Protein backbone atom coordinates (compact mmCIF):
# COMPACT_ATOMS: atom_id res chain seq x y z
CA UNK A 1 0.00 0.00 0.00
CA UNK A 2 1.29 3.43 -0.81
CA UNK A 3 2.77 6.14 1.29
CA UNK A 4 -0.26 8.44 1.11
CA UNK A 5 -2.68 5.96 2.68
CA UNK A 6 -0.14 5.11 5.43
CA UNK A 7 -0.14 8.77 6.36
CA UNK A 8 -3.89 8.93 6.32
CA UNK A 9 -4.13 5.84 8.51
CA UNK A 10 -1.75 7.26 11.12
CA UNK A 11 -3.85 10.41 11.30
CA UNK A 12 -7.04 8.43 11.71
CA UNK A 13 -6.06 5.99 14.46
CA UNK A 14 -7.70 6.74 17.80
CA UNK A 15 -5.98 5.78 21.05
CA UNK A 16 -6.42 2.02 21.43
CA UNK A 17 -4.56 -0.70 23.40
CA UNK A 18 -4.51 -2.86 20.26
CA UNK A 19 -2.23 -2.05 17.35
CA UNK A 20 -3.19 -4.29 14.46
CA UNK A 21 -0.71 -5.64 11.94
CA UNK A 22 -3.05 -4.84 9.07
CA UNK A 23 -3.98 -1.32 10.05
CA UNK A 24 -7.65 -2.38 10.00
CA UNK A 25 -9.78 -1.79 13.09
CA UNK A 26 -12.01 -4.74 13.68
CA UNK A 27 -14.21 -5.08 10.64
CA UNK A 28 -13.75 -1.39 9.86
CA UNK A 29 -11.14 -1.92 7.18
CA UNK A 30 -8.77 0.67 5.86
CA UNK A 31 -9.31 1.40 2.20
CA UNK A 32 -6.74 2.40 -0.38
CA UNK A 33 -7.62 4.60 -3.34
CA UNK A 34 -8.79 2.59 -6.32
CA UNK A 35 -5.73 3.73 -8.25
CA UNK A 36 -3.51 2.31 -5.52
CA UNK A 37 -5.18 -1.09 -5.99
CA UNK A 38 -4.10 -1.17 -9.64
CA UNK A 39 -2.14 -4.22 -10.78
CA UNK A 40 -0.56 -4.85 -14.15
CA UNK A 41 -2.61 -7.09 -16.41
CA UNK A 42 -5.62 -7.38 -14.12
CA UNK A 43 -9.08 -6.81 -15.56
CA UNK A 44 -12.73 -7.35 -14.73
CA UNK A 45 -13.65 -8.34 -18.29
CA UNK A 46 -12.22 -10.75 -20.83
CA UNK A 47 -12.21 -9.14 -24.25
CA UNK A 48 -10.75 -10.68 -27.40
CA UNK A 49 -7.66 -9.05 -28.86
CA UNK A 50 -8.80 -6.44 -31.41
CA UNK A 51 -7.87 -7.27 -35.00
CA UNK A 52 -4.94 -5.32 -36.43
CA UNK A 53 -6.01 -1.95 -37.83
CA UNK A 54 -4.23 0.85 -39.61
CA UNK A 55 -4.71 3.88 -37.35
CA UNK A 56 -5.76 7.06 -39.11
CA UNK A 57 -5.41 9.31 -36.07
CA UNK A 58 -2.15 10.89 -37.22
CA UNK A 59 -0.63 13.03 -34.50
CA UNK A 60 -3.77 12.69 -32.35
CA UNK A 61 -3.11 9.05 -31.38
CA UNK A 62 -2.45 8.57 -27.66
CA UNK A 63 1.16 7.93 -26.88
CA UNK A 64 0.70 6.74 -23.30
CA UNK A 65 -1.80 4.49 -21.52
CA UNK A 66 -4.72 6.45 -20.09
CA UNK A 67 -3.92 5.30 -16.56
CA UNK A 68 -7.12 3.52 -15.56
CA UNK A 69 -6.53 1.05 -12.73
CA UNK A 70 -6.74 -2.67 -13.46
CA UNK A 71 -8.83 -4.63 -10.95
CA UNK A 72 -10.84 -7.84 -10.84
CA UNK A 73 -14.60 -7.49 -10.39
CA UNK A 74 -14.70 -8.69 -6.74
CA UNK A 75 -12.06 -6.12 -5.85
CA UNK A 76 -14.11 -3.33 -7.41
CA UNK A 77 -17.27 -4.48 -5.65
CA UNK A 78 -15.54 -4.71 -2.26
CA UNK A 79 -13.86 -1.33 -2.70
CA UNK A 80 -17.09 0.55 -3.30
CA UNK A 81 -19.13 -1.39 -0.76
CA UNK A 82 -16.51 -0.65 1.92
CA UNK A 83 -16.54 3.03 1.01
CA UNK A 84 -20.34 3.08 1.12
CA UNK A 85 -20.23 1.62 4.66
CA UNK A 86 -18.29 4.68 5.75
CA UNK A 87 -20.73 7.09 4.19
CA UNK A 88 -23.49 8.81 6.11
CA UNK A 89 -26.90 9.16 4.52
CA UNK A 90 -30.51 9.92 5.32
CA UNK A 91 -31.07 6.14 5.12
CA UNK A 92 -28.70 5.75 8.12
CA UNK A 93 -29.88 8.45 10.47
CA UNK A 94 -30.95 12.00 11.20
CA UNK A 95 -29.37 14.51 8.81
CA UNK A 96 -30.09 17.93 10.33
CA UNK A 97 -28.54 20.21 7.65
CA UNK A 98 -30.40 23.53 7.75
CA UNK A 99 -31.74 24.80 4.41
CA UNK A 100 -31.20 21.39 2.85
CA UNK A 101 -34.36 19.47 3.78
CA UNK A 102 -32.72 16.06 3.99
CA UNK A 103 -35.89 14.00 4.25
CA UNK A 104 -36.71 10.35 3.74
CA UNK A 105 -36.95 9.19 0.12
CA UNK A 106 -39.97 6.85 0.13
CA UNK A 107 -39.37 3.48 -1.51
CA UNK A 108 -42.66 3.76 -3.36
CA UNK A 109 -41.10 6.62 -5.39
CA UNK A 110 -38.27 4.30 -6.39
CA UNK A 111 -40.60 1.47 -7.34
CA UNK A 112 -42.56 3.71 -9.71
CA UNK A 113 -39.48 5.36 -11.23
CA UNK A 114 -38.24 1.88 -12.13
CA UNK A 115 -41.37 0.90 -14.08
CA UNK A 116 -40.00 -0.04 -17.51
CA UNK A 117 -42.54 2.19 -19.28
CA UNK A 118 -40.81 5.17 -17.65
CA UNK A 119 -37.29 3.89 -17.04
CA UNK A 120 -36.68 2.68 -20.60
CA UNK A 121 -37.91 5.81 -22.39
CA UNK A 122 -35.52 7.74 -24.57
CA UNK A 123 -35.83 11.52 -24.86
CA UNK A 124 -35.59 11.35 -28.65
CA UNK A 125 -38.49 8.91 -29.03
CA UNK A 126 -41.35 10.12 -31.24
CA UNK A 127 -43.94 12.06 -29.24
CA UNK A 128 -46.80 9.69 -30.10
CA UNK A 129 -44.91 6.95 -28.19
CA UNK A 130 -44.30 9.06 -25.06
CA UNK A 131 -47.78 10.38 -24.34
CA UNK A 132 -47.85 8.61 -20.96
CA UNK A 133 -44.67 10.33 -19.82
CA UNK A 134 -45.94 13.70 -21.06
CA UNK A 135 -49.18 13.09 -19.18
CA UNK A 136 -47.17 12.52 -16.03
CA UNK A 137 -45.39 15.84 -16.58
CA UNK A 138 -48.73 17.50 -17.18
CA UNK A 139 -50.12 16.04 -13.95
CA UNK A 140 -47.02 17.23 -12.07
CA UNK A 141 -47.55 20.70 -13.55
CA UNK A 142 -51.11 20.66 -12.25
CA UNK A 143 -49.98 19.76 -8.71
CA UNK A 144 -47.19 22.33 -8.66
CA UNK A 145 -49.29 25.19 -10.00
CA UNK A 146 -52.11 24.32 -7.60
CA UNK A 147 -49.81 24.12 -4.56
CA UNK A 148 -48.12 27.40 -5.46
CA UNK A 149 -51.06 29.39 -6.75
CA UNK A 150 -49.01 30.41 -9.78
CA UNK A 151 -50.16 29.67 -13.35
CA UNK A 152 -46.88 28.83 -15.10
CA UNK A 153 -44.08 26.36 -14.55
CA UNK A 154 -40.77 25.68 -16.28
CA UNK A 155 -39.90 22.04 -15.62
CA UNK A 156 -36.48 21.93 -17.26
CA UNK A 157 -34.08 23.46 -14.68
CA UNK A 158 -31.74 20.83 -13.29
CA UNK A 159 -31.60 22.04 -9.69
CA UNK A 160 -32.16 25.01 -7.40
CA UNK A 161 -29.39 27.30 -8.63
CA UNK A 162 -30.27 26.69 -12.29
CA UNK A 163 -33.88 27.36 -11.34
CA UNK A 164 -32.88 30.71 -9.87
CA UNK A 165 -31.04 31.59 -13.07
CA UNK A 166 -34.05 30.51 -15.12
CA UNK A 167 -36.27 32.77 -12.99
CA UNK A 168 -34.02 35.80 -13.35
CA UNK A 169 -33.68 35.23 -17.11
CA UNK A 170 -37.51 35.21 -17.34
CA UNK A 171 -37.61 38.49 -15.40
CA UNK A 172 -34.90 40.00 -17.59
CA UNK A 173 -36.71 38.90 -20.76
CA UNK A 174 -40.02 40.34 -19.50
CA UNK A 175 -38.43 43.69 -18.65
CA UNK A 176 -36.51 43.92 -21.91
CA UNK A 177 -39.63 43.07 -23.88
CA UNK A 178 -41.01 46.33 -22.48
CA UNK A 179 -37.79 48.17 -23.39
CA UNK A 180 -36.72 48.29 -19.76
CA UNK A 181 -32.98 47.97 -19.04
CA UNK A 182 -32.98 47.88 -15.24
CA UNK A 183 -29.56 47.06 -13.77
CA UNK A 184 -29.98 46.17 -10.10
CA UNK A 185 -31.23 43.15 -8.19
CA UNK A 186 -31.83 43.56 -4.47
CA UNK A 187 -31.06 40.48 -2.37
CA UNK A 188 -32.16 40.08 1.23
CA UNK A 189 -29.36 39.49 3.74
CA UNK A 190 -31.38 36.55 5.02
CA UNK A 191 -31.65 34.96 1.56
CA UNK A 192 -29.71 31.95 0.33
CA UNK A 193 -26.08 32.42 -0.67
CA UNK A 194 -26.79 31.34 -4.23
CA UNK A 195 -29.19 34.27 -4.78
CA UNK A 196 -26.58 37.03 -5.23
CA UNK A 197 -24.46 34.70 -7.37
CA UNK A 198 -27.46 34.06 -9.62
CA UNK A 199 -28.24 37.75 -9.99
CA UNK A 200 -24.62 38.50 -10.89
CA UNK A 201 -24.60 35.66 -13.43
CA UNK A 202 -27.75 37.08 -15.04
CA UNK A 203 -25.80 40.32 -15.54
CA UNK A 204 -27.25 42.36 -12.68
CA UNK A 205 -25.54 44.48 -10.05
CA UNK A 206 -26.34 43.04 -6.64
CA UNK A 207 -27.27 45.15 -3.65
CA UNK A 208 -28.04 43.74 -0.23
CA UNK A 209 -31.17 44.58 1.76
CA UNK A 210 -30.37 44.33 5.48
CA UNK A 211 -32.28 42.26 8.02
CA UNK A 212 -34.12 43.96 10.86
CA UNK A 213 -33.71 43.11 14.56
CA UNK A 214 -36.36 40.40 14.16
CA UNK A 215 -34.29 38.58 11.53
CA UNK A 216 -36.63 39.55 8.68
CA UNK A 217 -36.18 41.81 5.65
CA UNK A 218 -36.00 45.44 6.76
CA UNK A 219 -39.08 46.77 5.01
CA UNK A 220 -38.16 50.44 5.43
CA UNK A 221 -34.67 49.85 3.98
CA UNK A 222 -36.23 47.98 1.06
CA UNK A 223 -38.73 50.75 0.35
CA UNK A 224 -35.98 53.38 0.59
CA UNK A 225 -33.87 51.59 -2.00
CA UNK A 226 -36.56 50.70 -4.55
CA UNK A 227 -36.49 52.77 -7.72
CA UNK A 228 -36.60 52.68 -11.52
CA UNK A 229 -33.19 50.91 -11.69
CA UNK A 230 -34.33 47.86 -9.69
CA UNK A 231 -35.28 44.80 -11.77
CA UNK A 232 -36.10 42.39 -8.97
CA UNK A 233 -35.98 41.65 -5.29
CA UNK A 234 -34.77 38.18 -4.24
CA UNK A 235 -35.65 36.70 -0.89
CA UNK A 236 -36.10 33.32 0.73
CA UNK A 237 -39.26 32.46 2.64
CA UNK A 238 -39.09 31.09 5.26
CA UNK A 239 -35.70 32.78 5.33
CA UNK A 240 -32.36 31.29 6.33
CA UNK A 241 -32.99 32.19 9.98
CA UNK A 242 -35.93 29.75 9.84
CA UNK A 243 -38.36 32.67 10.14
CA UNK A 244 -41.45 33.46 8.09
CA UNK A 245 -41.12 36.78 6.26
CA UNK A 246 -44.30 38.13 7.79
CA UNK A 247 -44.21 41.44 5.91
CA UNK A 248 -43.72 39.80 2.53
CA UNK A 249 -47.08 40.91 1.11
CA UNK A 250 -46.30 44.55 1.84
CA UNK A 251 -42.75 44.12 0.53
CA UNK A 252 -44.08 42.54 -2.68
CA UNK A 253 -46.59 45.37 -3.15
CA UNK A 254 -43.78 47.92 -2.81
CA UNK A 255 -41.60 46.01 -5.29
CA UNK A 256 -44.47 45.82 -7.80
CA UNK A 257 -45.25 49.52 -7.35
CA UNK A 258 -41.63 50.21 -8.36
CA UNK A 259 -42.13 48.15 -11.56
CA UNK A 260 -39.93 45.29 -10.38
CA UNK A 261 -40.51 41.56 -9.81
CA UNK A 262 -40.33 39.43 -6.65
CA UNK A 263 -38.20 36.29 -6.81
CA UNK A 264 -38.59 33.84 -3.93
CA UNK A 265 -36.08 31.09 -3.33
CA UNK A 266 -38.28 28.04 -2.75
CA UNK A 267 -35.65 25.86 -1.09
CA UNK A 268 -37.55 26.17 2.18
CA UNK A 269 -40.95 25.37 0.71
CA UNK A 270 -41.16 22.30 2.95
CA UNK A 271 -42.35 24.63 5.70
CA UNK A 272 -45.21 25.95 3.56
CA UNK A 273 -46.35 23.18 1.21
CA UNK A 274 -50.10 22.70 1.34
CA UNK A 275 -50.46 25.57 3.84
CA UNK A 276 -49.40 28.70 1.95
CA UNK A 277 -49.63 29.44 -1.76
CA UNK A 278 -46.66 31.66 -2.69
CA UNK A 279 -48.68 33.30 -5.46
CA UNK A 280 -51.00 34.70 -2.76
CA UNK A 281 -48.00 36.42 -1.13
CA UNK A 282 -47.25 38.43 -4.27
CA UNK A 283 -44.39 36.25 -5.47
CA UNK A 284 -43.84 36.37 -9.24
CA UNK A 285 -41.28 33.66 -9.60
CA UNK A 286 -40.02 30.83 -7.41
CA UNK A 287 -38.02 27.68 -7.93
CA UNK A 288 -38.91 24.47 -6.14
CA UNK A 289 -36.40 21.82 -5.20
CA UNK A 290 -38.13 18.52 -5.96
CA UNK A 291 -35.10 16.96 -4.22
CA UNK A 292 -35.99 18.76 -1.01
CA UNK A 293 -39.71 19.34 -0.55
CA UNK A 294 -40.88 16.49 -2.75
CA UNK A 295 -38.57 13.78 -1.40
CA UNK A 296 -36.49 12.92 -4.45
CA UNK A 297 -32.90 11.94 -3.55
CA UNK A 298 -30.06 14.42 -3.20
CA UNK A 299 -26.74 14.82 -1.49
CA UNK A 300 -24.91 12.44 -3.78
CA UNK A 301 -28.03 10.47 -4.70
CA UNK A 302 -29.57 13.01 -7.08
CA UNK A 303 -29.77 14.41 -9.68
CA UNK A 304 -31.63 17.42 -8.38
CA UNK A 305 -34.59 19.00 -10.11
CA UNK A 306 -35.60 22.64 -9.82
CA UNK A 307 -38.87 23.54 -11.58
CA UNK A 308 -39.61 27.28 -11.66
CA UNK A 309 -43.07 28.63 -10.90
CA UNK A 310 -44.07 31.70 -12.89
CA UNK A 311 -46.73 34.39 -12.57
CA UNK A 312 -48.79 35.16 -15.68
CA UNK A 313 -46.59 38.16 -16.52
CA UNK A 314 -43.48 35.96 -16.69
CA UNK A 315 -44.87 32.70 -18.12
CA UNK A 316 -44.54 33.70 -21.83
CA UNK A 317 -40.75 33.98 -21.39
CA UNK A 318 -40.26 30.45 -19.95
CA UNK A 319 -37.47 28.32 -21.43
CA UNK A 320 -37.92 25.65 -24.08
CA UNK A 321 -39.14 22.99 -24.24
CA UNK A 322 -42.49 23.30 -22.52
CA UNK A 323 -45.60 21.22 -22.50
CA UNK A 324 -48.73 22.16 -24.43
CA UNK A 325 -52.07 20.42 -24.43
CA UNK A 326 -53.95 20.12 -27.72
CA UNK A 327 -57.23 18.32 -27.09
CA UNK A 328 -56.30 14.84 -25.89
CA UNK A 329 -52.73 15.13 -27.12
CA UNK A 330 -49.74 16.61 -25.36
CA UNK A 331 -46.75 17.98 -27.13
CA UNK A 332 -43.42 19.54 -26.22
CA UNK A 333 -42.91 22.96 -27.74
CA UNK A 334 -39.32 22.83 -28.95
CA UNK A 335 -38.95 25.90 -31.17
CA UNK A 336 -38.94 29.61 -30.47
CA UNK A 337 -41.90 30.46 -32.65
CA UNK A 338 -45.68 30.75 -32.38
CA UNK A 339 -46.73 30.40 -28.74
CA UNK A 340 -43.03 30.19 -27.76
CA UNK A 341 -41.87 33.29 -29.66
CA UNK A 342 -41.07 35.16 -26.44
CA UNK A 343 -39.19 32.29 -24.75
CA UNK A 344 -35.74 33.35 -23.56
CA UNK A 345 -34.23 30.14 -24.95
CA UNK A 346 -33.12 26.79 -23.67
CA UNK A 347 -31.41 25.78 -20.44
CA UNK A 348 -31.05 22.06 -20.93
CA UNK A 349 -30.80 19.64 -23.83
CA UNK A 350 -34.07 17.84 -23.07
CA UNK A 351 -37.17 18.28 -20.92
CA UNK A 352 -35.71 18.03 -17.40
CA UNK A 353 -35.14 15.24 -14.88
CA UNK A 354 -37.85 12.75 -15.82
CA UNK A 355 -36.91 10.27 -13.08
CA UNK A 356 -37.39 13.00 -10.47
CA UNK A 357 -40.74 14.07 -11.95
CA UNK A 358 -41.97 10.50 -11.44
CA UNK A 359 -40.71 10.35 -7.84
CA UNK A 360 -42.11 13.77 -6.96
CA UNK A 361 -45.53 13.03 -8.40
CA UNK A 362 -45.56 9.64 -6.63
CA UNK A 363 -44.87 11.53 -3.38
CA UNK A 364 -47.68 14.02 -4.02
CA UNK A 365 -50.24 11.39 -5.03
CA UNK A 366 -49.38 9.06 -2.15
CA UNK A 367 -49.66 11.91 0.39
CA UNK A 368 -52.60 13.72 -1.14
CA UNK A 369 -53.40 17.36 -0.44
CA UNK A 370 -54.06 16.71 3.26
CA UNK A 371 -50.87 14.65 3.62
CA UNK A 372 -48.72 17.39 2.10
CA UNK A 373 -50.26 19.90 4.49
CA UNK A 374 -49.30 17.63 7.35
CA UNK A 375 -45.74 17.42 5.98
CA UNK A 376 -45.37 21.17 6.46
CA UNK A 377 -47.01 21.08 9.88
CA UNK A 378 -44.83 18.23 11.13
CA UNK A 379 -41.65 19.76 9.69
CA UNK A 380 -42.39 22.98 11.59
CA UNK A 381 -43.37 21.03 14.71
CA UNK A 382 -40.12 19.03 14.86
CA UNK A 383 -37.99 22.17 14.48
CA UNK A 384 -39.94 23.93 17.21
CA UNK A 385 -39.61 20.87 19.44
CA UNK A 386 -35.82 20.95 19.08
CA UNK A 387 -35.82 24.73 19.68
CA UNK A 388 -37.93 24.34 22.82
CA UNK A 389 -35.91 21.42 24.21
CA UNK A 390 -32.40 22.89 23.73
CA UNK A 391 -33.21 26.62 23.86
CA UNK A 392 -32.06 26.83 27.49
CA UNK A 393 -28.57 25.39 26.83
CA UNK A 394 -27.76 26.61 23.29
CA UNK A 395 -28.32 30.25 22.27
CA UNK A 396 -31.40 30.73 20.07
CA UNK A 397 -30.72 33.70 17.79
CA UNK A 398 -34.35 34.78 17.69
CA UNK A 399 -37.26 34.08 20.02
CA UNK A 400 -39.52 31.26 18.80
CA UNK A 401 -41.58 30.00 17.27
CA UNK A 402 -39.54 29.15 14.20
CA UNK A 403 -40.57 27.51 10.96
CA UNK A 404 -38.94 24.30 9.66
CA UNK A 405 -35.46 25.04 11.01
CA UNK A 406 -34.09 26.59 14.18
CA UNK A 407 -31.11 28.91 14.34
CA UNK A 408 -28.59 29.20 17.17
CA UNK A 409 -25.45 31.29 17.49
CA UNK A 410 -22.29 30.73 19.50
CA UNK A 411 -23.01 32.87 22.59
CA UNK A 412 -23.36 29.69 24.68
CA UNK A 413 -19.76 28.78 23.76
CA UNK A 414 -18.30 32.13 24.83
CA UNK A 415 -15.26 31.64 27.07
CA UNK A 416 -15.27 27.84 26.66
CA UNK A 417 -12.50 27.69 24.04
CA UNK A 418 -14.93 25.69 21.87
CA UNK A 419 -15.99 27.04 18.49
CA UNK A 420 -19.06 26.32 16.38
CA UNK A 421 -16.84 24.12 14.17
CA UNK A 422 -15.59 22.12 17.19
CA UNK A 423 -19.13 21.66 18.47
CA UNK A 424 -20.33 20.40 15.08
CA UNK A 425 -17.41 17.97 14.83
CA UNK A 426 -18.15 16.59 18.30
CA UNK A 427 -21.65 15.74 17.07
CA UNK A 428 -20.03 13.24 14.66
CA UNK A 429 -18.59 11.38 17.68
CA UNK A 430 -22.13 11.20 19.05
CA UNK A 431 -23.31 9.52 15.84
CA UNK A 432 -24.97 12.41 14.00
CA UNK A 433 -24.23 14.31 10.83
CA UNK A 434 -23.51 17.91 11.89
CA UNK A 435 -25.98 20.70 11.35
CA UNK A 436 -25.28 23.59 8.95
CA UNK A 437 -22.65 25.84 10.50
CA UNK A 438 -21.51 29.43 9.98
CA UNK A 439 -24.58 30.04 7.83
CA UNK A 440 -26.56 32.25 7.74
CA UNK A 441 -24.00 35.01 8.17
CA UNK A 442 -26.45 37.34 9.91
CA UNK A 443 -25.62 35.76 13.29
CA UNK A 444 -22.24 34.93 14.84
CA UNK A 445 -21.05 31.31 14.64
CA UNK A 446 -24.39 30.02 13.35
CA UNK A 447 -25.72 26.51 14.00
CA UNK A 448 -28.77 25.85 11.79
CA UNK A 449 -30.83 22.71 12.46
CA UNK A 450 -33.57 21.31 10.21
CA UNK A 451 -34.86 17.96 11.49
CA UNK A 452 -37.69 17.56 8.92
CA UNK A 453 -40.91 15.61 9.41
CA UNK A 454 -39.00 12.38 8.80
CA UNK A 455 -37.85 12.11 12.42
CA UNK A 456 -39.84 10.27 15.06
CA UNK A 457 -40.07 11.56 18.61
CA UNK A 458 -37.53 8.91 19.72
CA UNK A 459 -35.09 10.02 17.08
CA UNK A 460 -35.52 13.69 18.06
CA UNK A 461 -35.04 12.86 21.76
CA UNK A 462 -31.77 11.05 21.06
CA UNK A 463 -30.49 14.02 19.05
CA UNK A 464 -31.62 16.49 21.70
CA UNK A 465 -29.90 14.44 24.42
CA UNK A 466 -26.66 14.56 22.40
CA UNK A 467 -26.93 18.34 21.95
CA UNK A 468 -27.65 18.90 25.66
CA UNK A 469 -24.79 16.62 26.68
CA UNK A 470 -22.32 18.40 24.39
CA UNK A 471 -23.45 21.82 25.60
CA UNK A 472 -22.91 20.68 29.21
CA UNK A 473 -19.47 19.28 28.36
CA UNK A 474 -18.45 22.55 26.68
CA UNK A 475 -19.57 24.73 29.57
CA UNK A 476 -17.94 22.31 32.06
CA UNK A 477 -14.56 23.12 30.52
CA UNK A 478 -13.98 19.87 28.64
CA UNK A 479 -12.68 21.70 25.57
CA UNK A 480 -10.28 18.91 24.55
CA UNK A 481 -13.07 16.56 23.50
CA UNK A 482 -14.20 19.28 21.08
CA UNK A 483 -10.98 20.75 19.72
CA UNK A 484 -9.75 17.27 18.72
CA UNK A 485 -13.10 16.05 17.43
CA UNK A 486 -14.06 13.85 15.70
CA UNK A 487 -12.22 11.23 17.76
CA UNK A 488 -14.24 8.19 16.70
CA UNK A 489 -14.76 8.73 12.97
CA UNK A 490 -12.79 6.80 10.33
CA UNK A 491 -10.80 10.01 9.80
CA UNK A 492 -9.90 12.71 12.30
CA UNK A 493 -10.36 16.45 11.64
CA UNK A 494 -9.33 17.33 8.10
CA UNK A 495 -7.15 20.36 7.48
CA UNK A 496 -9.64 22.51 5.59
CA UNK A 497 -7.24 25.43 5.42
CA UNK A 498 -4.51 23.42 3.70
CA UNK A 499 -7.12 21.81 1.44
CA UNK A 500 -8.30 25.25 0.32
CA UNK A 501 -4.88 26.92 0.08
CA UNK A 502 -3.03 24.04 -1.54
CA UNK A 503 -5.67 21.80 -3.08
CA UNK A 504 -4.58 18.42 -4.45
CA UNK A 505 -7.14 17.93 -7.17
CA UNK A 506 -6.08 14.57 -8.52
CA UNK A 507 -4.12 11.50 -7.55
CA UNK A 508 -0.73 10.97 -9.14
CA UNK A 509 1.29 7.75 -9.10
CA UNK A 510 4.10 8.03 -6.52
CA UNK A 511 6.78 7.03 -9.05
CA UNK A 512 5.48 9.26 -11.82
CA UNK A 513 5.57 12.88 -10.71
CA UNK A 514 3.78 15.74 -12.42
CA UNK A 515 6.23 16.13 -15.34
CA UNK A 516 5.58 12.63 -16.64
CA UNK A 517 1.88 13.23 -17.33
Amino acid sequence: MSHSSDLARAASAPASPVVTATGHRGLDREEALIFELDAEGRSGVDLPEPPPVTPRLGGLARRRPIGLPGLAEPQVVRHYVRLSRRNYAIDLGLYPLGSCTMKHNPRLNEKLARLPGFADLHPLQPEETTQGALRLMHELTHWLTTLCGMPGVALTPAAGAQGELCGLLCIRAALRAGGDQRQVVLVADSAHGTNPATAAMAGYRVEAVPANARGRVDLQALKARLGPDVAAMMLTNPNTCGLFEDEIAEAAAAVHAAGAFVYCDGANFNALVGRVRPGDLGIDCMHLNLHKTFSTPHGGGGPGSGPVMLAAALAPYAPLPFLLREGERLRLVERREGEAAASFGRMKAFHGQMGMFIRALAYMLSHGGDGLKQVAEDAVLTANYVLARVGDVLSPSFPGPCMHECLFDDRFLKGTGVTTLDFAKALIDEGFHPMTMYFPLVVHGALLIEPTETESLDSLEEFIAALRHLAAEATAGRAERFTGAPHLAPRRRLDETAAARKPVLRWRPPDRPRAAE
Partner: protein
Amino acid sequence: MSETRFTKDHEWIRLDGTVGTCGITDYAQQQLGDVVFVELPEIGRKVAKGEQTAVVESVKAAAEIYAPVGGEVVATNAAIVDEPAKVNAAAMGDAWFFRLRLADPREFAALMSDAEYQRFVEGLQ
Protein backbone atom coordinates in the same frame (compact mmCIF):
# COMPACT_ATOMS: atom_id res chain seq x y z
CA MET B 1 2.80 61.85 8.80
CA SER B 2 0.35 59.19 7.62
CA GLU B 3 -2.92 58.63 9.40
CA THR B 4 -5.09 55.49 9.54
CA ARG B 5 -8.87 55.55 9.66
CA PHE B 6 -11.51 52.79 9.86
CA THR B 7 -14.96 51.81 8.58
CA LYS B 8 -17.81 50.00 10.30
CA ASP B 9 -17.26 47.17 7.81
CA HIS B 10 -13.79 46.64 9.30
CA GLU B 11 -11.68 48.10 6.55
CA TRP B 12 -8.76 50.41 7.30
CA ILE B 13 -7.23 53.11 5.13
CA ARG B 14 -3.88 54.80 5.64
CA LEU B 15 -3.47 58.12 3.85
CA ASP B 16 -0.16 59.28 2.34
CA GLY B 17 -0.71 62.49 0.40
CA THR B 18 -3.63 61.79 -1.92
CA VAL B 19 -3.22 57.99 -1.97
CA GLY B 20 -4.82 55.72 0.62
CA THR B 21 -3.67 52.16 1.31
CA CYS B 22 -6.62 49.90 2.26
CA GLY B 23 -6.93 46.56 4.01
CA ILE B 24 -9.02 44.68 6.55
CA THR B 25 -8.58 45.08 10.28
CA ASP B 26 -7.07 42.59 12.67
CA TYR B 27 -10.53 42.09 14.17
CA ALA B 28 -11.89 41.23 10.70
CA GLN B 29 -9.21 38.61 10.02
CA GLN B 30 -9.80 37.06 13.44
CA GLN B 31 -13.53 36.82 12.76
CA LEU B 32 -12.99 35.32 9.32
CA GLY B 33 -10.49 32.68 10.45
CA ASP B 34 -7.94 31.17 8.06
CA VAL B 35 -8.05 33.19 4.84
CA VAL B 36 -7.79 30.95 1.77
CA PHE B 37 -8.59 33.22 -1.18
CA VAL B 38 -8.35 36.88 -2.12
CA GLU B 39 -9.69 38.65 -5.22
CA LEU B 40 -8.40 42.13 -6.01
CA PRO B 41 -9.76 44.90 -8.26
CA GLU B 42 -8.28 45.93 -11.61
CA ILE B 43 -5.89 48.82 -11.54
CA GLY B 44 -7.51 51.92 -12.99
CA ARG B 45 -11.01 51.00 -11.78
CA LYS B 46 -12.97 53.90 -10.33
CA VAL B 47 -14.95 53.05 -7.24
CA ALA B 48 -17.46 54.92 -5.14
CA LYS B 49 -17.32 54.97 -1.36
CA GLY B 50 -18.92 51.75 -0.10
CA GLU B 51 -18.67 49.97 -3.46
CA GLN B 52 -17.59 46.34 -3.39
CA THR B 53 -13.95 46.41 -4.45
CA ALA B 54 -12.34 43.12 -3.35
CA VAL B 55 -13.32 39.72 -1.98
CA VAL B 56 -11.79 37.74 0.86
CA GLU B 57 -12.68 34.13 1.54
CA SER B 58 -11.89 32.05 4.60
CA VAL B 59 -12.71 28.47 5.54
CA LYS B 60 -15.85 29.85 7.20
CA ALA B 61 -17.17 32.50 4.85
CA ALA B 62 -16.69 34.75 1.85
CA ALA B 63 -16.83 38.49 2.54
CA GLU B 64 -16.89 41.57 0.36
CA ILE B 65 -14.45 44.38 0.95
CA TYR B 66 -15.85 47.81 0.28
CA ALA B 67 -13.95 50.91 -0.74
CA PRO B 68 -13.61 53.02 2.44
CA VAL B 69 -13.63 56.15 0.25
CA GLY B 70 -14.27 56.89 -3.42
CA GLY B 71 -11.38 57.03 -5.85
CA GLU B 72 -9.29 55.24 -8.46
CA VAL B 73 -7.45 51.97 -7.83
CA VAL B 74 -3.75 52.73 -8.41
CA ALA B 75 -2.12 49.59 -6.95
CA THR B 76 -3.02 46.11 -5.68
CA ASN B 77 -1.10 43.70 -3.48
CA ALA B 78 -0.51 40.53 -5.53
CA ALA B 79 1.43 38.96 -2.64
CA ILE B 80 -1.79 38.23 -0.72
CA VAL B 81 -3.31 36.51 -3.75
CA ASP B 82 -0.33 34.16 -3.92
CA GLU B 83 -0.27 33.68 -0.16
CA PRO B 84 -3.65 34.43 1.46
CA ALA B 85 -2.26 33.39 4.89
CA LYS B 86 -0.51 36.79 4.96
CA VAL B 87 -3.89 38.39 5.66
CA ASN B 88 -4.06 36.51 8.95
CA ALA B 89 -0.42 37.24 9.79
CA ALA B 90 -0.27 40.95 8.96
CA ALA B 91 -3.74 42.35 8.33
CA MET B 92 -2.79 45.88 9.39
CA GLY B 93 0.65 45.83 7.75
CA ASP B 94 2.08 44.04 4.69
CA ALA B 95 -1.25 42.42 3.81
CA TRP B 96 -2.90 45.54 2.40
CA PHE B 97 -5.38 44.93 -0.44
CA PHE B 98 -5.38 47.97 -2.73
CA ARG B 99 -4.39 51.62 -2.98
CA LEU B 100 -6.85 54.35 -3.98
CA ARG B 101 -6.22 57.85 -5.25
CA LEU B 102 -8.85 59.73 -3.28
CA ALA B 103 -11.59 61.56 -5.13
CA ASP B 104 -12.61 63.60 -2.10
CA PRO B 105 -10.41 63.92 1.01
CA ARG B 106 -13.46 64.85 3.09
CA GLU B 107 -14.63 61.23 2.84
CA PHE B 108 -11.44 60.16 4.62
CA ALA B 109 -11.89 62.67 7.41
CA ALA B 110 -15.42 61.36 8.03
CA LEU B 111 -14.19 57.82 8.88
CA MET B 112 -13.52 56.52 12.41
CA SER B 113 -10.24 57.21 14.18
CA ASP B 114 -8.28 54.34 15.76
CA ALA B 115 -9.77 55.04 19.20
CA GLU B 116 -13.30 55.31 17.79
CA TYR B 117 -12.89 52.00 15.95
CA GLN B 118 -11.59 50.25 19.07
CA ARG B 119 -14.68 51.43 20.97
CA PHE B 120 -16.89 50.30 18.06
CA VAL B 121 -15.37 46.79 18.14
CA GLU B 122 -15.69 46.56 21.92
CA GLY B 123 -19.37 47.33 21.48
CA LEU B 124 -19.71 44.31 19.16
CA GLN B 125 -18.30 41.82 21.64
